[in-house]
């Protein structure tokens, strides 16, 4: 191709003809941060990297990080796409509670487990659709629109459970929360499959590009003939679906549905995971695997503080300190500083 390359203004980064994925991956601030947190954990607790095989499954602190991080990772998968459209979904924690309540109430009333699971997922889809309708058709700001369900959802869940903690002994539901597949805990398997499936769907189809376009400039998206409303509906519905899955896992884990506490404040962890993963709250470019990585960073810190014997109160302070470091690393300011360092162009 002989097109003239006369430009003009500095493009910021040297244009790579073909990005080298591996090298790029290991120099991302998120990956460096995760490695750093894991190393600190290892220094505090020498057995941190030890993984043992027992009763047909893996055990160890690393496995624990993955297992405990799975619900937030699953929420983050849905949340990434919502945030990419310049939105936010505050209701996912409450939707988790609804999903758990639906599944638990149904199985204790004798409904078969697969149907209870489908009903819980259906409830999540409906919740997401509701959010999507508020945002799209009524044009309510996402933070307010989803706040409605964040508050009301927990009430709904309590109505379903009639105010009690509904415990169950259904083996299928328990398996979702505590079982294992190929030696890995089920939550990890589900989160990994969901991440791969969601990434493939958005990147192999044009969905990812269209979502980014809506997030970057919704008005221009409309002028370019995109059906922005439909895309928003899909994205919010998918976030509700992810929340329902996370709700099932949490319910299965404690063998019961606790409408008051299931998923409490997890929407904030999910938003944090997405932001740590580099998706801007201003919408646009997004990465699902990076958001999952963000969820793992958060969980590594939680686990590290627990096993190192510090009191859990430290958790919140340390967590915020690490998060500030990561966000500073991602900020435009440090991008400018770092670009100057390696004898960059200009």
């Amino acid at each position, binding site marked *: *191709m002989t*097109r*003239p*390359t*006369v*430009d*003009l*203004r500095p*493009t*910021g980064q040297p*244009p790579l003809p073909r990005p080298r994925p591996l090298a790029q991956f290991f120099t991302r601030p998120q990956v460096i941060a995760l490695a750093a947190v894991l190393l600190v954990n290892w220094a505090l607790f020498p057995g941190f990297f030890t993984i043992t095989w027992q009763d047909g499954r893996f055990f160890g602190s690393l496995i624990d990080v993955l297992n405990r991080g799975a619900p937030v990772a699953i929420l983050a998968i849905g949340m990434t796409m919502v945030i990419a459209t310049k939105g936010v979904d505050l209701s996912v924690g409450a939707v988790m509670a609804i999903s758990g309540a639906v599944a638990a109430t149904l199985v204790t009333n004798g409904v078969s487990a697969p149907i209870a699971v489908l009903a819980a997922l259906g409830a999540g889809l409906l919740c997401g659709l509701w959010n999507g309708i508020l945002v799209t058709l009524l044009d309510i700001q996402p933070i307010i629109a989803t706040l409605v369900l964040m508050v009301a959802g927990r009430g709904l869940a309590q109505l379903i459970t009639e105010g009690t903690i509904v415990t169950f002994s259904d083996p299928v539901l328990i398996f979702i929360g505590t079982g294992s597949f190929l030696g890995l805990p089920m939550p990890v398997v589900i989160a990994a499959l969901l991440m791969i499936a969601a990434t493939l769907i958005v990147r*192999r*189809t*044009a*969905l990812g*590009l*269209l979502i*980014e*376009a809506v997030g*970057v*400039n919704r*008005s*221009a*998206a*409309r*002028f*370019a*003939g*995109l*059906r922005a409303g439909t895309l928003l509906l899909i994205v919010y519905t998918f976030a509700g679906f992810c929340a329902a899955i996370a709700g099932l896992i949490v319910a299965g884990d404690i063998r019961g549905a606790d409408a008051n506490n299931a998923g409490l404040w997890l929407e904030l962890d999910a938003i944090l995971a997405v932001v740590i993963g580099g998706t801007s709250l201003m919408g*646009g*470019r997004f990465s699902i695997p990076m958001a999952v990585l963000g969820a793992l960073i958060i969980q590594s810190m939680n686990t590290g503080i627990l096993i190192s014997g510090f009191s859990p109160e430290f958790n919140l302070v340390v967590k915020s300190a690490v998060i500030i470091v990561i966000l500073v690393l991602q900020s435009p300011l440090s991008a400018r500083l770092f670009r100057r360092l390696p004898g960059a162009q200009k």
Partner: protein
Amino acid sequence: MTDTKPVLEARGIVKIFGQHRALDTVDFTANAGEVHALLGENGAGKSTLIKILTGAYQPEAGELLLDGQPIHLRDPLHGQTYGIGTVYQEVNLLPNRSVSENLFLGRQPTRFGMVDHKRIDALARDLLSRYGLDVDVRAELSEYSVAVQQIVAIARAVELSGKVLVLDEPTASLDRNEVQRLFDVVRGLKAKGLAIIFITHFLDQVFELADRVTILRNGRKVATQALDTLNTTDVVRMMLGKDVAFDHHPTALTGGPKGAVRVAFKGLSRKGLSPFDLAVHEGEVVGVAGLLGSGRTEVARLMFGVDPSDGGQITVDGQPVSIRNPAQAVAAGFGFCPEDRKLDGIFGDLSVRENIIIALQAKLGWLKALNRDDQVELAGRYAEALDIRAADHDMPVKLLSGGNQQKVILARWLAIDPSFLILDEPTRGIDVGAHAEIVRTINRLREEGLALFVISSELDEVVAYSNRIVVMRDREMVAELDGDAIASDAIVQAIAGTATEARP
């Protein structure tokens, strides 16, 4: 007009944005006791000049003089301390606070360290009575009409400044009685010796209120003249184009037979726009001439389904189509380069390549993804055809110059292989080279058989590429000029038309 003491004077002002000279050695003088109208189409440099006069921008060259003394304004607040106040079209006040608080915000009289509401209210009532306004000053500002809010804003600006008052499109959202009321207030201030700079695109209001007029075009001053020496036609001519002969080539444009009708609009209408009929043929450019606010952009938006129509039919190649939203318009093979490139056109953070393929991708639907190779090929092809200057098609489009961004949007529509293309001010705010490139492209597309509908404030430009010209005035298509009838005088007169009469 006997008192010609200059209050605010700008000499040789130059303002450059990127590679674009927004103002090129412009002189401007506002005298005491006069209303000085500032006219020009969008992009002419009106708002840039105002921002320099009020201190919001700093010029690259030139100087400001206040009462003959050179001044350097850091920001609008600093300008205010010199006595230069501004009132914008959208009232910049606090709608949820009371009228009196709005008048005295930031300089409230206090009593024992607390805001003295009684005194504020008394002062506010007294102040507003001087403007003939008798309202409950304790009520929230938002309870009053825009006209009252405008007067409150003027009162505040005059109170704070008191030498120069800039009115930026103050009448845009007022009805006729409110306009008269506002004009009475302005005349009162004029009599007190204020220098008033009045920006509007309603020519009749200029003739009614202003003493002198300065006309800008493409960042240059065309003229400053007393209005009693001018008529509407003169003003329109100065705003829209050179008064030299227009550069129309009737042989090239109207010689050949027209193709079949590509799109036809019958009785298309929407509230605030008179129904219109229009047919655009294959290989034809229909140009639209008319001033800002004449309804030209509204017509384009209606055609493309951005605003749904209230009635009327659209046919494409003889087949009726329903266009209720842009997605349906794209499906029918329409493309639209909107007037506000940044707001409605480009996806700043997305790459040049993605910006080019996005409309085609939207048309194909999300399941039929263009793979990377297809995208690279498409982007390469159209970037070359339109000479888009980008170091790399993976760079964010926001880093390109305005002209190249416009070409990217044009490329986006060419990529869907459109049957009908609507261009709203395709050459606004872009550099001379890209400008010529876009005009060439319009001519080439016409020769290739595309049907185009092009809106432009540049009269000589419309004349250069149009087979037919539709003239719009007061939200209505008032004239259609074809072939040899396309001449400067005819267009200018059609635009000026009833502008001298009172507005309906």
